[in-house]
Every structure is written in structure tokens, then in C-alpha cells.
């Protein structure tokens, strides 16, 4: 004689079928590659992932090294520039050195029809800087190389700070002229 009534056995069977059905659906849905390839709801949304190349100095302060970072795609110029500057401010993930003065952020970004990007950075860019000419050279190089590499429309970069012209970051290298990203290897 069975301890459970018929209705209870049918109910348990239906529950088991529901659980296995849900598990099967989850497995089918997750068969797609995960991890490296980002899962975005649908390509009709405007949110995609993009590989960005960031430049940081090596620990010896000799040269810039590139680091690839996966980032959410941004539409506007200001957002794209701000995203890159923020990533530089957060620093590298391995081996290299962060040289962008801490707390630097983008106030405004303007791009003219000749590809000149006028980048207005927050006061922290100048106030938080410390170091010698090597740090200064690599900080500027890190910034303009990163912008030049990820924003093909940017041919030259003019740095200003808090809406005012910036003569120099640390007093060693002039910043009152537009900078060519290619001149900062």
C-alpha cells in the first residue's frame, strides 16, 4: 500500500517535470559562449562592447605599454573621451604604472573639423601632478596616445585645464600647442 495519495503523487510528478523543464531551458539558453563574448540583450540596443587600447608607462619609466580593456560602447564624443580618461585614472591592471594625476576628469571635449580635440580637464590634472620630466612626458604621452588610438577622428590634442590654457603640467614640457599623438611613442 502506498503511503501517499494519488493526487500527491501526480502533484510531485508535475513539479519534477516543471523543474526539469526549467533546467533544460536554462541549459539551452546558456549554450552560447559566455565570459569573453559579452551577453547583450539584443543588437538592436545601442549598448555594445568595444576593445579599447590604453597606454601606461612601464615600471622602469622607459616607454609606454598598451593594455587592452573591454568597455561599454559610448555614443557621444564627450562620453567616449571621459570613459578613456576615467580608465587611465583608474590605472593599469598589470605591471605598468598609473601616471595620470589622480582625480583627473573631463570637463569638456570639443572636436573641430580638422581633427583638433580641445580637451578641458579638471583642476586635479594640474594640482595633483607630482614628479619630474619623465613622469610629465609619460603622463602626457599616456593621455594623447590613448585618445589618438581609440578615437580615429582625433588628429591632434590641445590640453586645457579648468577652462584656462595650460602652459605646462609640471613645468618641464610645454602644453600650449596642440600635441600630435604620433609624437609620443
Amino acid at each position, binding site marked *: 500500500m502506498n503511503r501517499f495519495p494519488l493526487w500527491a503523487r501526480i502533484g510531485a510528478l508535475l513539479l519534477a517535470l516543471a523543474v526539469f523543464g526549467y533546467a533544460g531551458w536554462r541549459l539551452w539558453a546558456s549554450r552560447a559562449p559566455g565570459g569573453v563574448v559579452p551577453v547583450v540583450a539584443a543588437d538592436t540596443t545601442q549598448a555594445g562592447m568595444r576593445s579599447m587600447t590604453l597606454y601606461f608607462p612601464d615600471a622602469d619609466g622607459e616607454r609606454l605599454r598598451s593594455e587592452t580593456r573591454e568597455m561599454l560602447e559610448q555614443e557621444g564624443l564627450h562620453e567616449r573621451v571621459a570613459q578613456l580618461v576615467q580608465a587611465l585614472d583608474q590605472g593599469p591592471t598589470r605591471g605598468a*604604472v598609473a601616471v595620470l594625476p589622480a582625480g583627473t576628469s573631463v570637463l569638456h571635449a570639443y572636436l573641430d573639423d580638422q581633427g583638433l580635440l580641445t580637451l578641458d580637464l579638471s583642476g586635479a590634472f594640474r594640482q595633483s601632478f607630482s614628479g*619630474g620630466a*619623465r613622469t610629465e612626458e609619460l603622463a602626457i604621452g599616456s593621455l594623447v596616445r590613448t585618445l589618438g588610438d581609440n578615437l580615429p577622428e582625433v588628429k591632434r590634442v590641445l590640453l586645457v585645464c579648468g577652462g584656462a590654457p595650460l602652459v605646462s603640467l609640471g613645468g618641464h614640457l610645454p602644453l600650449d600647442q596642440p600635441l600630435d599623438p604620433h609624437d609620443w611613442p
Partner: protein
Amino acid sequence: MRRGLALVALTVLLGATPAPVPAPVPVTPAASPGATPAEPAVPAAAGIQSAPVVAIDGVNMVSAQDLARLLDASRFWRADVRKLVLRAPRLRITLTVDTPIAIVDDQTVRLAGSVRSRRGELFVPVSLLTALPRDSSTARLVFDPAALRVRVAPLAGYVGSPFVQTSGGVTRVVFPAERAESADVAGRSRARFRVRVPGAFAGALPDSLPEDGVVRDLRLSPAASGVIFELALAPETANFRILRDNGRVTLEFASVPTPGFERFAAEAPAGPRAVHLIVLDAGHGGIDSGTRVGTAIEKELTLQLARVLAPELERRTGARVVLTRSDDRALTQEARAEAANRARADLVLSLHFDGFPSPGAHGATVFCPPASTSDAARAGYTPLALTTWREVAVQHAVASRTLAEALSGALESHGFGPVRVRERLPVALLGVNAPGILVECSTLTSPDDLTKLLRPAGLRVLASAIADGVVAFQRDE
């Protein structure tokens, strides 16, 4: 049994889905390019982006993530239909897992194999590359079967091997360049004649140079925007010209003055140089302390060094030495430049000490003016390639570079190396009408450098090294 069932149900309901086991797909280094259309071997050039190619089921494949990176494309994954869309500004590629079909913009492309999923990553047959548009809006990708890599062919193209030949008293240096029309002379001195060419160098330098020619040395310097050929020419070389035609650049150097040829930059005659007055510019000062590491403060060290170096230079060179500041005060760059120009300086040394966030950085750096005019003028932002007074120091680029090399050698030999020489106009030389350099004598944030400097005779040894360099420059050694 019931407990196991409940555990599975709980696992599923909490979302910790067991990882799907992918079909066993062997991934091995590609052995032969046979599974893909043959493409010309691409020379490996420095600075070119690339991605590895693997063979999956005998088909050469590149990961979709690498493909997106090389194309500068965004990735959109549709899990419900297992499609990956790569979207670049003027390109859209749709890939479907386990399907040998790709859609490139509106065209359906048959691939050499199916798009495969492996360890959470999609792999695409490299045969897709042949279907990508070949216009300037999209990176040009090529499969290099020899190196088993997919490379981005530089938009500026490639620069090939130079060869040197001599005939009729003219020495010619010829090299192929896809953007020959953009080749430009970056330095006009005989000692360091430099030509900048857009593109990636994919060739080799000649093993030897003709003995009857005027080219004494030929080197290559990488630059992010291309390459720079650097030539050392015989002092008797009279003039030069550059020809750009049909993907080829020809440099012609004549031994006698020739109509239509250009002149070299003015150079000081060889032999001892007249150095009667040297300006020592102690960096920073006043509220500008410069780099500070413990008790070592840059503005104080530069002033101490200037005070030790001044009598050393006067004794060994016979020149008079003027300091831009002799106490702790802030000076504008205009004031420093005016001090040097009023004194009619033959040499200007701006003294600094370096600092870097990492203790691994050490040694010295010498900055000297570049031979070309400002970035703005080069880029065409000014209608005429004028040298502004701000950049007057570039007129002394050749002598400044010689001084930088002399000082570099002296610092190295006294143990202050490694020394880096940078051709970049520093603030300290803006408006300075004389050969000059900015020298970061050592790195205060390096424990070794700091210990060496703070020894009792540390500054004296450093001053002696700098004086050695100035004397070598003066004697043209």
C-alpha cells in the same frame, strides 16, 4: 534520490547552471595554411597590430574578439539565436555559431568552415578576411600564413628596404614606400640627416655602403607615425634633394653644388667650439619645489649643484658662468630666457632632478630641441612654416644634440646612467637663443640614485661629470 533531485532543482533555481560542455574541438597551432585561400606573405613590421591564428578541425581561425579588436568594432551577442554581430563605423558582420556562413553588410559569405565556439570564445575562419571591404574606412586585415597571424596592414602602408648607389658624383638612397608623397625631411644636418616616412618598415638595411658615396651610415628609428631614416653624410656633401614618385622615395646627395638641390642646415665648423659664456639655470625655486623625496627637495638640489658646477666649469672651460638664480626664488620662463639671452650665452644648461611613481625608474634624461619646427606648423595649422621666437632654440638643434650626446656619455661613464636623450623642446629652453639642454641629472625616487647623490661628495661627482661633458662638447671630441 529525492535529496539529489532537490539539490539539482535548487542549483537551477539559484542560477548556478552547470557549465555546458562544449563539443570536443581540437585546437592546435595551425600547421599549414591549406584550408584557407592563399594570401601573400606579409612582412612582419614593428608596431603592427596582430592576432594569433589557430587551426580548428584543420581550418585556420581567428577569435571573434581579436577580430573585433583589429577592426575596431563593437560586439553584440544575441544569445537566443547564437549570433554575434561585429559593428564598426561602416561595417557590420553577422556570425552564427556552427554555421559556415557570415553576413558582411548585405552580402552572404561562404566561409572555409563553420564558426566555432571554444571555451566561451567564438572562432571565425580567416577566409572571412577576403570578403571584408578594402576601403580606407576599415582596417585592412591580412592573413600572414608564415607567422600564423592576422595583421592590420597599416593605413600608411609599408616602407621597403633602401639601397644606396653612386653615379656621376651623386649618391642616391632609394626605398619603396606606399605613401611616398608624404615623405618629409625632418633633419637637415649632414651629421644627422633624417627623413620621416609614413608606414611600417618591412625590409632590411643594406649590409654595406658604397665606399665612393657620401653616405657614411644609415640607420632606422621607429616612430609611431612611421619610420625615420637617419643618415650620416660626409662633411663634403654639398647639397641634397628628395624625389617622390610612383611609390618610391629617392634621396640624392651631390658632392658639388647642383642647381635644384637644397642646402643643409648651417653647422658650426669642426674643431674646438667657442664657449665664452655658460648659463646655468637651476630648475624650480620659490613656491615651486619640484620633486620632493624625504629631505631631498629638487629646488634646493638644483641650486646646490649650480653653485658647485659653476666654479668647476669656469676652471675647466675658461668660460664665464652666469646663474639664472642664486637663491630660493621663483622665476618665470620669460625671466630665465631673458637672463640667458641678455648674457649672450654660448650654452644653457637647465639643471633638474627627476621623479617617478615607481622606484624602478632610475638614471638621467637629457632633453634637447628637435631639428624641426613646432607641431602646429608641421601639421599645417599655420600658413607658413615660420619659426617663432618661442621656438628659437630649434635653430641650435644640431649643437644642442651634440651637447646632449657629450653630456650623456659623461654621465654614463661616471655611473649616473642609464641616460636617455630626448629630442623634445622643454619649457626651460622656450625663447632661449643658444644651444642648450635640460638635464634631469638623476632620479630622486630611485633609492640607488638618491643614495649616490646624497653621499658627501655626491654633488661634486655629478658636477665633475657634467663638466666633462661640456669640455667634450667644447673640444668637439
